[in-house]
């Protein structure tokens, strides 16, 4: 039986096996390559997406559980936003592999805490690994996007 969901606001039906990973459906069926595979084991957050507004790792989600779910990938975020501009301005991106997951983690965080403390930023991003930036610039970008100070 096909699985019906909404991806970035559009209805989508997948006929992949119910135990297929949401990550593979997004990348291979929907051609949404912004969702990355890092570890494939839930550790790195490169594959993070929002499901019904909650941050999850798509490598750990079987398609069978996505019936009627509302899914947001990095492609579903506005192209120009305070968050995107802050990432650029603060140098929060280097190789870029972690960036989509970081943006989604930041989106989930800001939806809950419009003005997060550094502690809340750290917590909100604690499931996302970055091998390049050392995190400081990413935290700064999120603080800036929230309208706070950039010198974290």
């Amino acid at each position, binding site marked *: 039986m096909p699985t019906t969901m909404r991806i970035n606001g559009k209805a989508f039906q997948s006929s992949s096996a119910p*135990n297929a990973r949401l990550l593979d459906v997004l990348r291979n069926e929907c051609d949404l390559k912004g969702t990355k595979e890092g570890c494939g084991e*839930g*550790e790195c957050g490169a594959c993070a997406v929002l499901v019904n507004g909650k941050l999850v790792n798509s490598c750990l989600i079987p398609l069978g559980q996505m019936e009627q779910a509302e899914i947001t990938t990095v492609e579903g975020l506005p192209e120009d936003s305070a968050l995107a501009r802050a990432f650029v301005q603060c140098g929060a991106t280097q190789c870029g592999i972690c960036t989509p997951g970081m943006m989604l983690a930041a989106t*989930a965080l800001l939806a809950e805490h419009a003005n997060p403390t550094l502690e809340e930023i750290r917590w909100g991003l604690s*499931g996302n690994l970055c091998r390049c930036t050392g995190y400081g610039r990413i935290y700064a970008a999120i603080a800036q996007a929230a309208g706070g100070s950039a010198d974290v």
Partner: protein
Amino acid sequence: MSEWTRPRHLPEALELLAAAPGQYRVISGGTDLMVESHLAPERHPEFWLDISGLRELQGLQITEEGIRIGAATSLEVIRRHAEVVTHWPMLAASAAVTGAPPIQNRATLGGNVCNASPAADNAPVLLAYGARLEIAHHHGSRWLPYMDFHQGYRKTALQAGELLSALWIPYPPKHSRGYFRKVGTRAAQAIAKVSIAALIEEDSGGMIQGARFGMASVAATPCTLPSVSQYLLGRALRDIADAQVRQRVGQDIAPIQDIRSTTAYRLEIASRLVLEAIHGRSESKKED
């Protein structure tokens, strides 16, 4: 092609399990199973029973004696629940250190227990609080003290056709204090080297009336510390000999050497944590 079934009600799920014993692989939040099936694709089961839609397994309810937590309730819902934060702060704390937010949004308390890892982070707290399990079968439910659930390395008391439906946790006794710590390599998302929870009850004269411990990563299963508890009973804090406690910790646990730690390290850390718990240098919030 694998088959996926996602019933809405518990009796329906139990009927399926009873009709085809051993056929279905039960999946809840999938945070353990998806890793396992990804790493060992040849072990992909054909029949999946998805319990994430079962109403009876969702949510928390306050009861006269304590709280009932549906087995498929996510750790995120649990750690934010106001009553849990107030009355069972150690559970809010253990849920908050189980992986990171994207894991907690999916991982369930029942899954943590049923996966039966010796390092399960919520196990010590459930042992210290004296949790009881509600186990459902097509023919009816049964109760089991959680301390009798783990029967050997990754072996549980669940029988074919059974599902863990809920965890019941009693209110901690008045005048008890809790202690919870997870010792890992880093704050987020690390498998514990050792973790411990304790619930210690003293009378007004400072005499220990009850002491329950739960530990993880110190034996083949999460475990209690029966001989430590027995030694403490009826003693005042000032009469406790640390050397006696250490010796009993050594009797109660059987730590292993693995990639995360050595046996000697685990034994030393376990002893220090137990002593810290007893002497009330409490790290988690006080119960009253």
